[in-house]
């Protein structure tokens, strides 16, 4: 087995977040390598290192047996690494051919773009790969699957020896997935090294010859496809010990609490809710959900299965296209993107607290806001929740990520008298900040007359350890997880494959 590329001991930190912590990757010739891992395991970052998009902090990258330093995508092309991105990099107003011409060398003086030669070359490539696209149509008129074919053509035109694809199947229909996989297989057959990240376990198992699993920025498994099965891979992806310990901790009082919750009327109720997604497909396909006081309903799923829409609907921020929604008057919402949706960085802490409280009677006098009372409340929240800030006049944008999240949690917990919706509330937080959020959620469940809590997360551990009830979101539908099946394996398999749905 000839290695085309080898990454060893790669580390990379973004701020305080360690995305890679000693990851390895081998790209053999003529082989499709599948890279697996949970959200945040470091898959994209690792591929970006090989694609020249991310410069590692330490570790070595070798291509063709020689150590290389890839500082920008162009460096990666030069050594024969082509990348197909998760987000499209095409210019919508230009035609397919013009897009393919971008970034290519023009004639000697840069005067002729050489469209005829390019057209011929593309035609040859299309004949060989079956990547049929209308060359003279503007990209904006293309379907998502077609756009991806253009992206792949663009990468293949550079004749890479290694082709990297970051979640190429996320936007494709099952038939498009099949033809993509056939293409990847034939590219590998011609001797290319293909590396792909896919969210769905069954897809990786279907196409890959080798599988590499990342967990917490580290490579924990790397083996030929024939030597591993789905269960082994799920076990490798998730740290089982961590979960079991957490489950034991909460197990004792769960049954009691559940019975209390069951007898009370629901504070929020969704009935057959449908939401049309941004691409015209149904993001939510008839979701029904009851939430009662003092229970945590955990919703877990692979990103892009409708959790975002569910969060917005149940927080009262999005009106569904069909179905019934009954929500209490006081709903707290912890949105997943705290910098864009939770806080306004250019406003100070008091003003950010006012964002959620400005409707409350206690903070209004006619058309006026009672800034004195708001500032006092802010001081109180900042003190109680340990937000590290010089004072209520500090700009929210000047706080660290963890302190920003503390502020959002403090504010929304304060608002949520009846219902709290938390969407990936610990994403990107360090351990201390994350356990703070977990403690606050658990605490809320213990107080009499506490709100019902909906925890929507792609972190399986978080959901397993905190929730009274667990539901899995699969392609816009909610699937109940029976109490007896609350195992990491069962829920994980449901998340990844969707076969039980």
């Amino acid at each position: 087995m000839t290695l085309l590329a080898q990454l060893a001991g790669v580390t990379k930190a973004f701020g305080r977040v360690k995305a890679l912590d000693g990851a390895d990757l081998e790209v053999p010739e003529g082989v499709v390598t599948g890279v697996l891992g949970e959200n945040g395991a470091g898959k994209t970052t690792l591929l970006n290192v090989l694609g020249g998009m991310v410069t590692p902090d330490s570790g070595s990258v070798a291509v063709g047996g020689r150590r290389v330093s890839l500082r920008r995508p162009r460096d990666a092309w030069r050594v024969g690494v082509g990348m197909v991105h998760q987000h499209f990099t095409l210019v919508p107003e230009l035609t397919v051919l013009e897009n393919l011409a971008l970034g290519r060398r023009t004639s000697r003086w840069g005067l002729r773009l050489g469209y005829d030669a390019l057209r011929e070359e593309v035609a040859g490539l299309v004949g060989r790969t079956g990547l049929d696209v209308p060359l003279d149509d503007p990209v904006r008129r293309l379907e998502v699957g077609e756009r991806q074919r253009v992206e792949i053509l663009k990468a293949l035109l550079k004749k890479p020896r290694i082709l990297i694809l970051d979640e190429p199947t996320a936007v494709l229909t099952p038939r498009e997935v099949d033809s993509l996989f056939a293409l990847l297989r034939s590219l590998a057959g011609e001797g290319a090294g293909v590396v792909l990240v896919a969210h769905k376990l069954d897809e990786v198992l279907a196409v890959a010859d080798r599988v590499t699993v990342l967990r917490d920025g580290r490579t924990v498994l790397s083996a030929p496809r024939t030597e591993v099965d789905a269960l082994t891979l799920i076990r490798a992806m998730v740290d089982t010990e961590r979960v079991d310990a957490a489950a034991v901790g909460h197990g004792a009082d769960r049954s009691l609490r559940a019975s209390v919750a069951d007898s009370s009327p629901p504070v929020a109720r969704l009935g057959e809710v449908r939401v049309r997604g941004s691409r015209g497909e149904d993001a939510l396909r008839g979701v029904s959900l009851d939430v009662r006081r003092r229970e945590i309903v955990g919703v877990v799923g692979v990103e892009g299965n409708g959790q975002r829409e569910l969060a917005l609907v149940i927080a009262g921020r999005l009106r569904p296209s069909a179905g019934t929604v009954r929500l209490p008057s006081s709903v707290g919402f912890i949105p997943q993107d705290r910098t864009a949706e939770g806080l306004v960085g250019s406003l100070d802490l008091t003003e950010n607290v006012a964002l959620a409280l400005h409707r409350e009677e206690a903070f209004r006098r006619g058309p006026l806001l009672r800034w004195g009372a708001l500032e006092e409340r802010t001081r109180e929240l900042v003190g109680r929740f340990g937000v590290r800030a010089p004072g209520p006049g500090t700009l929210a944008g000047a706080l660290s990520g963890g302190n920003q999240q503390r502020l959002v949690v403090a504010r929304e917990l304060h608002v949520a008298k009846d219902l709290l919706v938390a969407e990936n509330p610990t994403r990107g937080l360090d351990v201390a900040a994350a356990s703070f959020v977990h403690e606050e959620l658990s605490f809320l469940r213990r107080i009499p007359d506490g709100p019902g809590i909906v925890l929507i997360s792609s972190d399986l551990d978080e959901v397993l350890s905190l929730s009274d009830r667990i539901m899995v979101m699969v392609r816009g539908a909610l699937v109940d997880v029976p109490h007896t099946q609350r195992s990491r394996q069962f829920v994980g398999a449901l998340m990844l494959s969707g076969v039980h749905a």
Partner: protein
Amino acid sequence: MPDARRLGSAVVALGALLVTAAIAALGLWLGGYDVGDAAEALVAGSVGGRDALLSVTLVRGVPLVLTGLAVALAFRAGVWNIGAEGQLYAGALAAAWVGLAAGDQPAWALIATVLAAAGLAGAAWALVPALMKLWLGVGEVITTILMNFVGIYAVAYAVHGPLQEARGVFPQTDPIAEGARLPALVEGTRLHAGFGLAVFVALALWAVFRWTRAGFSVRAVGASPAAARISGRLNDRRVMLSAFLASGAVAGLAGGVEVAGVTYALYEGLSPGWGYTAIAVALLAGLHPGAVLLAGLLFGALEGGSGAMQRAAGIPAAWVSAVEALVILAVLAADQAWRRSAALVGPSREAVPEGGTGA
């Protein structure tokens, strides 16, 4: 508002003015003019005496303050209203029309009607780009600019056609009714009650931003529409629409005040581009209503002094227009420079690239 932000705005404004002054002085020097004479003439012509101050600087400052407030209000809401000029013309047209058609109502009622008509007309002018923005997603920068031309030529049509003076000689209207005119604020000068109105609007806006829920809504939506909607339980579109219309109304008011307080008639070219200078005024003021008052009067002084500069030092009055444009550039540059230096000393905000932590 934290002190850091207020300090930032002041530093930016001061820095921009210093840079502008330096460039202007350099330009004058290169052009062979005596910089000292020019500065002296500028000061004497704008604030050097009761008449220069009351009849020139303050009077010229009124439309600049009002349109500056209009722009600041819109920008605060994240609405890029570049159409204060057209809204001003619409207001002037409405004011002249009401003022001409007036009968023998009591003066206070007539003046109130004239100003209300001007405000409504300005708001109506802003309604077109506002609806195009909110319903169709058409960028308001282009549409408000285009509506400026419509406003300017609508006035030109009116004074050449239906509203032209009875004599039919000049492209202007007859004088509006005596009772529709704003009273003088200081006897023997041209300073009219519109100045008081401009000061009042500035203070009122300042109070609205500082203390009211409406003002807070505008600030929150302007700072981050997504956060205002998701975390602020605010209807960002409605807030933007209200701010857009209010901005148009204030700009329209500027036109009405000019007609009712200074010219008493409508004519082509009523505004030398106040609606555009207003952008410089608002940016220099860091979008603070109180500071807009100061910046508007400063620009009033510049324009007022430019005549004296031309007479005394032979410097073309157009020079001041160039200086006004320089102020915009300098403010934008100084603002960025300040942000960068603040970002360097302040706590670092690590930018984690999208998907950078894995996934």
